[in-house]
């Protein structure tokens, strides 16, 4: 069924463009940033780092009329969407659960609204972001794949600005301005869908609920010449309820307080105290069957960063972080059966990273991170028999350290610049992750069960080497990059055969650990100047897993293995008021498991799976286009954006199921698709 739904939503004004220099230095928001991102791509010592500028989000056409930072990075080489229209992303063979998304230094664990159709980040609240594709400087840790480091925007210190938008799907508003002129400012943005209001207008849907909201607020206070405070608050909430039978809720809550102090000579100290929590709460009341399920992850941290200026351009970054973590992998009740698994941990990390420019042609960034992760007593720990049954319980006292996982993580990047227009970069990084996430095998729930490293779960440890060549034309109109990588990871997790998401309350009983590897190359050509700008990106990649007890212990293609990805993004400035955008994506078929034979048991046809992920889904491709019209007035700027997602209405694979007739005479492979063509219109106004 295809119906063309005009989705009218409005987006607020695009923020002042900021480039990489401003990403980690929001405190300098009054400084006019003049750095050139093309030149930075050549000069930056870090390989595999992508800087996302908020004003560039409009270069990629939007789904449902929303600018979306997480969806935008999916157009970059080496980055994949987890599924059609999903806001989860995968980088260089890693899974989305192996990524860390930071918002003003605090982790955000669920970045999706409405099952992932919308990102949890409202672009009006953002300054910019950097995506590290596994090659992390030592100040970042906690992710065995990528880190997306997002910085929130601060309010205007001179005058009040804002905007309001109302559309069919959502409304959002922004207000910002000085609290004390030139000293303190505030910014508050809020967004809410009101799909539930439409549902209530239709008698058959009156008892259904489908909405989300999120709120961002930030206060920035310049105390003196040397000190500045930032207070950030973020919350998001989702609820989907069907006929008083099913009620699904999840939420994020984050607050952080940051104190920045400048020393003489360009050095600074940054102290951050934050809390971040994510939780979900689900209930079913269906024909007398009553059950509920919930889980959470909560983290409170103190982080200290020092940046020591060793004399331009040499720089030292060092610091430490201490976190208390509480993870409830699940708490549930099914009729009268109750289960709960909740554990706590203490994590400490210290790092040192130096960047040294030995000459105009040679830059080195090297560092080391020490990570100590200690699960704490107060809840049960156990040993397992090979079949996954519990062999022995350990009951540690409250806050008693069960064990400490120590990981030393060396990091290094080298940039060699033979000419001003070219550079060669090499990098190596070891990263580790102690918060593990396990997704339901069934695609119906957008939730993970989280677990911490324990006496049984070891940290996921990834080693990645990467090398790249970067070139630009003298006028910087074009630049090109070619990167290759090899990534190896230990202690990746997958389900035991015969176990599902909710088979046991003890998550460790569901899982086997193994190893993974991924490798590939990424090519990107960008056009940066003129009426026509954009890029072409091609990724050639392999991703494999090996776990004893699965696939006879042999290597198999990972769930996210996909050989070829092509992204083409273009923006054409037709006139001062009109801009046309188009983006085309092609992904060769993703690995999936299909049966190889069938047999009859209890008068039903059962499939026999001879190999894990041995088949390929049909190719995925689509074209998105948009056209925007804007008029800048003296006080008010208006913008209309007309967009079409999936212009040629390609039904791409989301899920493939198999069905047999009663007598097994014919097996049907059925592909389910989420979206055909989806047009949208949005209206933006700012003052």
């Amino acid at each position, binding site marked *: 069924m295809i*119906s063309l739904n005009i989705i009218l939503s409005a987006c607020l004004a695009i923020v002042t463009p900021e480039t990489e220099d401003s990403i980690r230095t929001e405190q300098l928001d009054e400084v006019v940033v003049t750095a050139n991102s093309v030149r930075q791509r050549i000069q930056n010592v870090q390989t595999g780092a992508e800087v996302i500028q908020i004003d560039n989000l409009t270069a990629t056409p939007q789904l449902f009329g929303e600018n979306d930072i997480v969806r935008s990075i999916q157009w970059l080489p080496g980055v994949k969407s987890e599924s059609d229209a999903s806001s989860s992303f995968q980088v260089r063979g890693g899974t989305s659960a192996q990524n860390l998304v930071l918002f003003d230094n605090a982790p955000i664990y669920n970045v999706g609204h409405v099952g992932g159709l919308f990102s949890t980040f409202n672009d009006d609240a953002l300054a910019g972001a950097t995506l590290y594709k596994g090659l992390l400087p030592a100040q970042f840790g906690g992710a065995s794949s990528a880190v997306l480091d997002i910085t929130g925007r601060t309010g205007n210190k001179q005058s009040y600005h804002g905007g309001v938008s109302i559309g069919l799907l959502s409304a959002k508003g922004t207000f910002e301005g000085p609290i004390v002129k030139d000293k303190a400012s505030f910014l508050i943005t809020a967004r809410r869908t009101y799909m539930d209001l439409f549902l209530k207008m239709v008698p058959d849907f009156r008892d259904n609920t489908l909405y989300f909201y999120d709120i961002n607020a930030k206060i920035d206070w310049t105390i003196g010449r040397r000190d500045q405070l930032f207070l950030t608050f973020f919350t998001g909430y989702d609820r989907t309820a069907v*006929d008083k039978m099913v009620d699904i809720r999840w939420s994020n809550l984050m607050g952080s307080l940051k104190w920045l102090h400048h020393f003489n000579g360009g050095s600074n100290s940054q102290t951050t105290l934050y809390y971040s929590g994510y939780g979900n709460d689900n209930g*079913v009341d269906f024909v007398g069957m009553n059950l509920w399920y919930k889980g959470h992850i909560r983290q409170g941290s103190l982080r200290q960063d020092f940046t020591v200026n060793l004399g331009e351009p040499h720089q030292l970054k060092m610091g430490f972080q201490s976190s208390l973590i509480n993870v409830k992998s699940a708490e549930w009740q099914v009729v009268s059966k109750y289960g709960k698994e909740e554990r706590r941990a203490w994590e400490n990390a210290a790092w040192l990273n130096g960047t040294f420019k030995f000459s105009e042609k040679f830059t080195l960034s090297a560092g080391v991170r020490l990570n100590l992760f200690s699960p704490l007593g107060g809840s049960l720990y156990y040993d397992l028999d090979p079949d996954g049954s519990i062999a022995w319980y350990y009951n540690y006292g409250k806050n008693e350290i069960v064990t400490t996982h120590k990981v030393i993580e060396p990091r290094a990047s080298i940039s060699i610049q033979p000419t001003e227009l070219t550079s060669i970069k090499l990098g190596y990084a070891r990263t580790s992750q102690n918060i593990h996430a396990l997704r339901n095998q069934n695609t119906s729930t957008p939730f993970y069960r989280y677990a911490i490293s324990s006496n049984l779960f070891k940290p996921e440890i990834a080693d990645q080497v990467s090398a790249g060549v970067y070139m630009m034309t003298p006028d910087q109109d074009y630049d090109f990059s070619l990167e290759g990588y090899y990534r190896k990871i230990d202690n990746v997790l997958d389900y035991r055969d015969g176990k599902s998401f909710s088979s046991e309350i003890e998550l460790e009983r569901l899982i086997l650990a193994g190893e993974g590897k991924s490798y590939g190359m990424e090519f990107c050509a960008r056009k940066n100047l003129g009426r026509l700008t954009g890029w072409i990106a091609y990724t050639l990649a392999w991703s494999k897993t090996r776990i004893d007890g699965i696939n006879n212990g042999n290597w198999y293609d990972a769930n996210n293995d996909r050989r070829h990805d092509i992204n083409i993004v273009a923006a054409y400035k037709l006139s001062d008021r009109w801009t046309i955008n188009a983006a085309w994506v092609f992904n060769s078929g993703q690995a999936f498991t299909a*049966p190889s034979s069938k047999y009859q*048991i209890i008068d039903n046809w059962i499939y026999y799976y001879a190999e894990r992920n041995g088949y390929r889904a049909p190719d995925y491709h689509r074209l998105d286009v948009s056209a925007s019209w804007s008029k800048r007035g003296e006080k008010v700027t208006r913008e209309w954006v007309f967009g079409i997602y999936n212009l040629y209405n390609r039904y791409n694979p989301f899920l493939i199921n198999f069905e047999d007739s*009663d007598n097994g005479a014919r097996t049907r492979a059925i592909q389910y698709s989420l979206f055909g063509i989806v047009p949208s219109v949005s209206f933006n106004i700012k003052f």
Partner: protein
Amino acid sequence: MRYHQLILIAILESIALLGTSCKKDIEIDYHQVAPLYVVEASVSNDGMEARISQTNNMDDNSTQSDISQAKVVITGSDGSQHILTYSRNGTYKASATGTPGVEYTIDITFDGNHFTSSSVMQKMPKMNNWRFIRKKIMTEHYQMGELLLQDIANEDNWYFMHIYRNNTGYRWAVKRDDQNPNKELQQLFTFAREGSDDKDLLREDDWLHIEIRAIDQKTYDYFYSMQIMDNTGTNPLPNFTGGCLGYFSAYSQITYDCEFHEADMEDEE
């Protein structure tokens, strides 16, 4: 209907509000694999039976390849031993019935193959009620069935329920008693959406035959892993040694027969 199915409906209905989701048949070039042996064997209060066959390739629409030359022996921990004799269509039978509490071991030998498994016979299950339900979910009505069992008191129990429609396998499920031990256990079956052309839609006068078995944990683990395999893309847990597919179960069974009449459906809003 399982919990995740309800959530799936919720999400798909949400997307359906946007009106762009779709499903279609696609072609798959199935890989050819060597046939494997399949055994389905039981000891019950009704007798002993084993069926030995082979897997079919996905595009092989012929009937299964049955094995007729096997030696099938079932031995009980009470010292009993029974040799099953070949009947037809790969089926071997003995008239002896099982005794609750006895562990039975099956040995199958042919052509150099030796498959063995064991299972403990369980007590007789008890059914409290069966009813047809018409359940409204958003704008649609669904045909459902509700089966209520009385848990066997003071022990861990596992159940297997199988519904035949007009002598053809139709729906099945397994259940542990840990959700409500020693009390009533509920199992819901989703049949089809009313008004659809689904072949699973119950028609007037359809005859349903319901088998309810008390099974041991090993058999439960096998069926549970079979129940989730469509989501996981994995095979059921091995129940036999020797490399064959299938299972051996010693169980006590009751049956219930009824006809489907739309007028008998109870509305659940």
